[in-house]
């Protein structure tokens, strides 16, 4: 049984199936294909979908809904995400779950709305002041966009953090016949709630990497949420050892709890060259790998990196070619400290990177 569908619609369906009950959006190509089905479908599930007057309002409404205890998400592209960045950092600091889809298009600035690209990885990963990590996941084809939307909501709820699903125009807007049994549904994860055991503190944790149990604003335990430096109770403070501990906790919470969220696809054929890619470019990598019998690694979790695993894989190869659709090699930049001298960057902008272009690059290598 097949359906004929875009990645954008599958993302919307994934969000709804993940339990998202609040969506606020502002239209932007190529993310409007998520906004429209959410506006159309979410009310059928008793959820709220609203149009905002800009992206700052959109993410702020989502943060509000999440504070009330509701799974919330928005979708945009780099021009809209640029406006949201301050609020993403706020959600990070305040430990408020929120899922954000970024459908990449050609940049910089407003660039070209209907041209696919992969130029926003570093913007996403390093989007907050202070340099704290946020999880960034990416489906490697249209089929996976449903599954990875659910993973993104899951990771954001489980770790009480903003999390990004980074994808591209050719995933959100290309329509494809897909076997329904190819669409995988991960188990849905719910935010861990404080149930009244011991004293409630908005940001309580024992181990530094523990995710504090959540209680909503308006619930029976009085909450103090804040985006300013705070202690475990949420009281604004500075120069206090507990404040510094809370900040380290923001980092450790992500790094130590990602085990279930490191996604990748590694095709080992025993050759000495490895192709590395992510997102829609993965499709060309798979095609050329089949044709020429080349090893590949597709990253579906782009941040944080699973350094130990990557190092172990990279050690097996003589050359590692990182293939991506942007101008300066963003993924290559992220991986460079693990690649050593073996790394080679292949980039292109303007059109999808085709299998034959990869083949040509490899021949000239």
């Amino acid at each position, binding site marked *: 049984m097949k359906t004929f569908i875009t990645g954008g619609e599958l993302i919307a*369906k994934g969000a709804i199936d993940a339990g998202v009950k*609040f969506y606020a959006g502002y239209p932007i190509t190529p993310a409007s294909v998520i906004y429209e089905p959410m506006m159309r479908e979410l009310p059928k599930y008793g959820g*709220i979908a609203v149009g905002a007057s800009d992206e700052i309002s959109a993410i*702020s409404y989502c943060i509000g809904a999440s504070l*009330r205890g509701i799974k919330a998400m928005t979708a945009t592209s780099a021009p809209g995400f640029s406006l949201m960045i301050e609020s993403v950092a706020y959600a990070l600091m305040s430990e408020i779950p929120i899922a954000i889809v970024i459908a990449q298009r050609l940049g910089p600035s407003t660039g070209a709305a209907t041209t696919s690209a992969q130029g926003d990885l570093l913007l996403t990963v390093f989007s907050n002041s202070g340099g704290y990590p946020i999880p960034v996941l990416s489906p490697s084809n249209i089929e996976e966009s449903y599954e990875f939307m659910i993973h993104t909501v899951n990771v954001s709820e489980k770790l009480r953090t903003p999390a990004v699903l980074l994808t591209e125009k050719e995933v959100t807007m290309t329509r494809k*016949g897909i076997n329904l049994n190819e669409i995988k549904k991960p188990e849905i994860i719910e935010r861990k709630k404080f149930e009244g055991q011991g004293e409630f503190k908005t940001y309580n944790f024992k181990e530094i990497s523990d995710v504090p149990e959540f209680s909503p604003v308006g*619930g029976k335990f*009085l909450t103090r949420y804040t985006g300013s430096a705070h202690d475990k109770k949420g009281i604004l403070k500075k120069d206090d050892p507990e404040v510094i501990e809370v900040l380290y906790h923001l980092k450790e919470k992500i790094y130590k709890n990602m085990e279930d969220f490191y996604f990748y696809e590694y095709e080992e054929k025993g050759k000495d060259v490895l192709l590395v890619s992510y997102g829609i470019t993965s499709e060309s990598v798979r095609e050329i790998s089949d044709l020429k019998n080349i090893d590949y690694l597709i990253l579906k979790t782009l941040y944080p990196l699973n350094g130990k695993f990557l190092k172990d894989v990279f050690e097996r190869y003589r050359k590692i070619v990182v293939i991506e659709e942007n101008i300066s090699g963003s993924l290559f930049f992220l991986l460079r400290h693990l690649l050593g001298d073996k790394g080679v960057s292949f980039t292109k902008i303007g059109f999808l990177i085709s299998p034959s272009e990869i083949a040509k690059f490899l021949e000239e290598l």
Partner: protein
Amino acid sequence: MDLFEIIEKPQNFPYCPGCGHTLVNMALAKAIVSLNIPKENILIVSDIGCVGLVDKLFNVHTVHTLHGRSTAIGTGIKMADEILFNNNLKTIVMIGDGGATIGLLHLVEAAKMNVDITVLIHNNFLYGMTGGQHSGLTPQNFITSTTRKGNPFPALNIIEILKNAGASFYARTFVQDRELSDIIKEAIVHKGFSVIEIFELCTGYAARYNKLKGSDLKNILEKHGGKIKEKKERLSFGESYEESIKGEEGGYELKVIEKEFEIPFNKSQKIIIAGSAGEGVQFASSLLALSALICGLNSSQKNDNPVTVGSGFSISEIIISKEKIRYSGIENPDYLIITSMDGYKRVKGKIMKAKNVIIDETLSDESKFLRVPARKYKGERGGPTVFSLGVLFEKYKIFPPEVFLKTVEKYGKSKEKTIKIFEEGRKFALKG
């Protein structure tokens, strides 16, 4: 309820002696106590600036936000509370000059949608926390640390703006007003968006620079429209929203494309259809992709168009294959169908790489190409594409014509016209 169960004693406030913020906080606390609202049902959303120090003074739910965003975050909380919960959470947003101007659009939108929040604007005519710089709410000729000879511009009249945006409760007064607590009470009880602009003098800067006393505040208020308080009945956000989605039910079901035909198909086919935006190229092309699906094959449709959707080119790249489709672009098309000049310009680089070219007869004299009168059908949405597909099916036998007819029957729009044009295309191919 005892007042000091929900608020700190004023001697513990962080505010400068004589600061109006102290009075606003006490007036708010009194309002909450006299309404006897359980503290679990009160939320204070605070902004940045001295006003943002309010959190730890209150023993209620608090959310300390970003500069200007308190209104928007409060809006999101209340949207969810009104519709998905029991609508018990009284949401009070505390902002100063900066929160009002940075968050102006959020205020306007909350007023427009009549979101059930209460906004207290602490207007002390300048930015106090950062050193007394002038703000969007600084009166004309007012002296601040950045307007030493007086502010050259008049202040924004925030209440007028929000009144015009649809605020269903708005008031303006000054901080020593004995009725302040009662006005706040009324605003909290009001169903829908309420805003109170409270004039204050920043003792640290405004009073010092402008040689003003607290009693001068009333004169400034008079000059800016005086004390007012108005309310009107309007549907709240939740009521309007629920009205708008009435009758929405069912679920988000993925449309299943049933297999209807078993036909032999070996080599994958790559077809580019290039025409003009607004002529239904992408929809008509989807009928080709769907034709493949009802034969149990795989297909993908990658579209391209300029930013506008009604002018310039419109391209669909369709791959049909027995195998799983990965890379969805087409470098060497088996068939290149060109139905307009816009499309021609966009794909001309691929003409030499195409195995077969079907092109509108007005666009080329080249005898190698199959020239067809596609544009004759541009009056019908998708006409030129459907005509060309008729040619493609008849001439190149990509699928039996019944496949297309079935696709139109199941998934088409204006089915009769589509079939008629498709048959015209077939007839043309048979003759030629």
